[in-house]
């Protein structure tokens, strides 16, 4: 078990190295540079800025310098936010995104799993039909539609929650709902599908033949197997959620990490792109490991093959 964790974390090093390399050269291949703007800077200023940040050096030299910084835990200065390092920018915005993402994640699981289990238990009955229809709707609604709809309905219509900002819990309500509802729809469908598959297995018939109550059959015998796909989904999903959603953060004016992803790419803010991408990569690796451990805990057959 400990061996597995250590091995997987060691495997993460070359993966992150590859991510850094690929991102570095891809973003440098893109035309333009961090200081190319609509209103061009005078050639002298541009030259001075490039010289200051060492952007005139050959790529391979810049690449070596970046890797050296990286080894010391430095993600470098941000080109788009003069006077700030990428470390600072991430330290400021990541906690906000983590909070938003974590709430949305917890919400999606708390809502999605019980509804999915119950929908599977009541397959083809009205409850299942309602759940399936609503969750399909939830999947089809992009967050940039759902967000404004919730603003109109809840904040403007009923006076629940605020439409922008990130201070009180009322500010958090709508963005968490927006992000959480869409993911709850995913979780619901995965849970329902997983449970239906397990409920049709022979061993469920055996459990019922033993005269166990419906609840025992559902929760002791079916839930473990039914949740395997949800766990596989929810792990990586958490890393996507805590690194921020550009759309939701933009709609609700939340100072999270998501906007940096997009803006950095537009601004050719090389170091910020690299920093956020590496962070996302590292989180995905960690969450996948957690999901695998959780699956092994649920499924004894996996334990053997993993170790």
């Amino acid at each position, binding site marked *: 078990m400990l061996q597995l964790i250590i091995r997987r974390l060691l495997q993460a090093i070359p993966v992150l190295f590859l991510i850094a390399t690929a991102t570095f050269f891809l973003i440098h291949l893109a035309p333009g540079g961090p200081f190319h703007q609509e209103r061009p800077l005078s050639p002298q200023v541009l030259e001075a800025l490039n010289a200051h940040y060492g952007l005139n050096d050959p790529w391979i030299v810049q690449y070596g310098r970046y890797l050296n910084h990286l080894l010391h835990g430095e993600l470098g200065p941000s080109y788009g936010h003069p006077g700030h390092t990428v470390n600072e920018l991430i330290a400021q915005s990541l906690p906000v995104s983590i909070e938003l993402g974590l709430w949305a994640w917890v919400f999606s699981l708390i809502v999605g799993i019980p509804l999915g289990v119950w929908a599977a238990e009541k397959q083809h009955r009205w409850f299942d039909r309602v759940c399936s229809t609503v969750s399909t709707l939830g999947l089809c609604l992009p967050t940039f539609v759902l967000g404004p709809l919730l603003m109109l309905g809840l904040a403007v219509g009923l006076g629940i929650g605020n439409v922008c900002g990130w201070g009180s819990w009322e500010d958090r309500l709508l963005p968490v709902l927006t992000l959480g509802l869409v993911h709850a729809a995913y979780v619901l469908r995965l849970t329902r599908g997983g449970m239906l598959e397990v409920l049709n297995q022979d061993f469920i018939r055996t459990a019922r033949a*033993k*005269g*166990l109550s419906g609840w025992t059959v559902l929760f002791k015998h079916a839930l473990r197997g039914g949740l395997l796909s949800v766990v596989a989904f929810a792990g990586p999903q958490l890393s996507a959620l805590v690194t921020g959603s550009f759309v939701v953060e933009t709609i609700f004016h939340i100072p999270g990490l998501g906007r940096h992803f997009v803006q950095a790419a537009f601004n050719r803010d090389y170091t910020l792109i690299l920093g956020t991408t590496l962070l996302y990569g590292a989180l995905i690796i960690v969450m996948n490991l957690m999901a695998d451990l959780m699956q092994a805990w649920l499924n*004894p057959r996996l334990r053997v093959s993993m170790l």
Partner: protein
Amino acid sequence: MTHWILKVKLKLMPLLDVQHLSVSFVHNGQRKHVVQDLSFVLEPGETLGLVGESGSGKSVSCLALLGLLPQPPAKVEGGRAFFEGIDLLQVSEKRLGKIRGQSMGIVFQDPSSSLNPYLTIGSQLAEGLIAHTNMGRRAARLKCIEALEAVGIADAGVRLNEYPHVFSGGMRQRVMIAMALLLNPQLLIADEPTTALDVTVQAQILSLLKTRQAALGTAMILVTHDLGVAARMCDRLILLRQGKVEEAGTAEAIFYAPQSLYAKELLAAVPTLPAIV
């Protein structure tokens, strides 16, 4: 006084009295009759064989008695099935669950899929005991060890903590038999218990079923399409074909003096070794 009368009545009554059982399935919008007008009586300790080709309604009849048919698509069209005086087809789901767990044991066809892969053998064995008796966990564990040893599983105390995937097919079927007989049921339903097993293991499992049945005095309904198995195990046979009873009687009568054309054809179809010497 009434109590005494009841006891005498119970003694005189057969263990299971099935009358005119009919089951249908809806398939592609069409209703198909899978079991039609099946009637039989089972006395305590007796072994009844339900024999027939695939799709003749053997398993469906058993599942209908147990209330384990998925309804829909299945539907019990009619009939009665008195088990110790209670109609299994009319009784509430909750009551039936209790009867099923306590007084009936079931061994299914495929032992590789009928044990829960996510739970230890021990917890799957003990849960029925704990649900239907007021036995504590420790006592239940001891009883489970005893039951596993009785079906020939060595080192039972250790094996209780293991998961089904480390057991071989024959071992799993032994576990299923131990599980089915754990509460000393009056009736054991064995639905093709050896079909998914090796021929050598088949023989072991059949003799195990027979010895455990004799030791506990359990009546058995054995579903099989294997005439050899039926001949070896059963006192009486019911020959089913397309959901209808083709012939019923003692095993001897059907094997040595078949009355229906179908029974004659079926017996003639059993492959025999040509005489070499």
